[in-house]
């Protein structure tokens, strides 16, 4: 791992509009290696727009997103050439979709799903690819006997774990997650969160996690950004923001959660 004192991702003045509709406005933050930032807010507050903009999936109208490549230079991801950017997206970065069907290739087996990124970066030894797939399936607690099964035969929680394995196989440094636990029942959610927390810690990943679930945010993220109507209204350490909210919207958000 390179110098941990340098930020991995620097976002500055990011804005995106959809015609008259505001996506997000003037968002800026930095992310350091090994750090997990949560983005919370209600539906339509611009969380996903922000995530797409910083993960090179949606060109912003304004602002810059700079990423520290493995060479150590901080480069604007929208100034890179397309091959460079696509290479970055499938090696150094990972994107976990809310719906695993968006992130998986449903017509090929679990093993091929995990191996795809390896083959995309030039792995040409079947035995090694299969070995890595096997390894990753057990890391995400999927029975390795199901390596040749189609993801469609997996349960929702397994599909989500498979998606994570598929993304992490190339050893990315930065993971983007869009509501990774959305649509899963509570016990499956808990297992997934446990797994993700373990992996993030073990691999020293930096992550940006978009969620509307404050419990997920509290469990996974070190820092929290609260979005409201396209703007970041409050950011700080997770516990600080959740235990001592300053902005009226954050106060509303925190107080709306049922305490079991």
């Amino acid at each position: 791992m390179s110098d941990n004192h340098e930020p991995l991702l620097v976002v500055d003045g990011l804005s995106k509009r959809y015609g008259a509709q505001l996506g997000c406005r003037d968002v800026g933050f930095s992310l350091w290696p090994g750090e997990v930032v949560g983005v919370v807010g209600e539906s339509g507050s611009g969380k996903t727009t922000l995530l797409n903009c910083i993960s090179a999936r949606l060109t912003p109208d304004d602002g810059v997103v700079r990423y520290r490549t493995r060479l150590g230079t901080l480069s604007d991801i929208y100034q890179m050439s397309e091959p460079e950017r696509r290479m970055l997206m499938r090696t150094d970065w990972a994107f976990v979709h809310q719906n695993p069907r968006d992130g998986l290739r449903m017509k090929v087996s679990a093993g091929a799903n995990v191996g795809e990124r390896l083959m995309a970066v030039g792995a040409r030894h079947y035995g090694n690819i299969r070995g890595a797939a096997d390894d990753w399936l057990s890391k995400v607690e999927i029975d390795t006997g199901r390596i040749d099964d189609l993801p469609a035969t997996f349960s929702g929680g397994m599909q989500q774990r498979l998606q994570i394995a598929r993304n992490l196989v190339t050893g990315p440094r930065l993971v983007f997650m869009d509501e990774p636990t959305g649509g899963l029942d509570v016990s499956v959610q808990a297992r997934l969160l446990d797994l993700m927390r373990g992996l993030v810690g073990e691999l020293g990943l930096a992550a940006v996690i978009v969620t509307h679930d404050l419990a997920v945010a509290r469990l996974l993220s070190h820092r929290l950004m609260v979005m409201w109507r396209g703007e970041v209204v409050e950011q700080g350490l997770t516990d600080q923001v959740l235990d001592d909210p300053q902005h009226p919207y954050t106060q509303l958000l925190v107080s709306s959660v049922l305490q079991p």
Partner: protein
Amino acid sequence: MAETSGYNFAYLDEQTKRMIRRALLKAIAVPGYQVPFASREMPMPYGWGTGGIQVTASIVGRDDVLKVIDQGADDTTNAVSIRKFFKRTAGIETTTQTHEANIIQTRHRIPEEDLRADQIMVFQVPIPEPLRFLEPRETETRKMHALEEYGLMHVKLYEDISQHGHIATTYAYPVAVKQRYVMDPSPIPKFDNPKINRSPALMLFGAGREKRIYAVPPFTDVHSLDFEDFPFEIQTWREACALCGATGSFLDEIVTDDAGGRMFVCSDTDFCEKRREAGHAGPALAAEGAV
């Protein structure tokens, strides 16, 4: 047969031929790259070789000798009709013998006989895009070709091995042309893939419905994709050809009765006939001779 009057030489008008020739030149200049062209309606349905016919019509001259094969055979409907078509519209010589022809239009096979530098192969291609069934978006596959992102092709081969224990793709087996473009060699059996590699003959591929032309120039490296631990292999047969006794040719299995009787014969009819003329005899003929 009499030449049909009222049509331009080889059916297509000169402007169309010019357009196709330009596409062909570009295709030859960028081996394996799919060049779009304004494919014309031909007097036959799509899927019957409209792409191949347009290519042949654009390159054929008055002195050329044409051979047309379909699944290796010279006497099938498709092959006979296309030969007749060019005989009528261009008044050219046609042949069934590989060594006599200088243009060979084909569907599904490359002749067994070694090709020469003065011969041109024209392939009829149904689906030119090797990534089609892996990535349905044409915009995306074009980008993948442009950026040389071919990992997905290996995902298919991986699936083959994981499901069948070996690479089960037997035809339209993807190849990398000159270490750059991944190309579908049209639905020829993978048995024929090595024949494209560094072939002295020019190979032209025409897809009429999909409106694409691509080419492999003579002496170009063509590598069939594989894994290090599962190298590319061609089909082999335990039997020899029942008629001519050949062992190194591509064999078709022919069911001879409804009691499970079957025999294996060369799919290349010209090759098989030549061998029989030269005195070779397979088990089926040898048995007949004995009676």
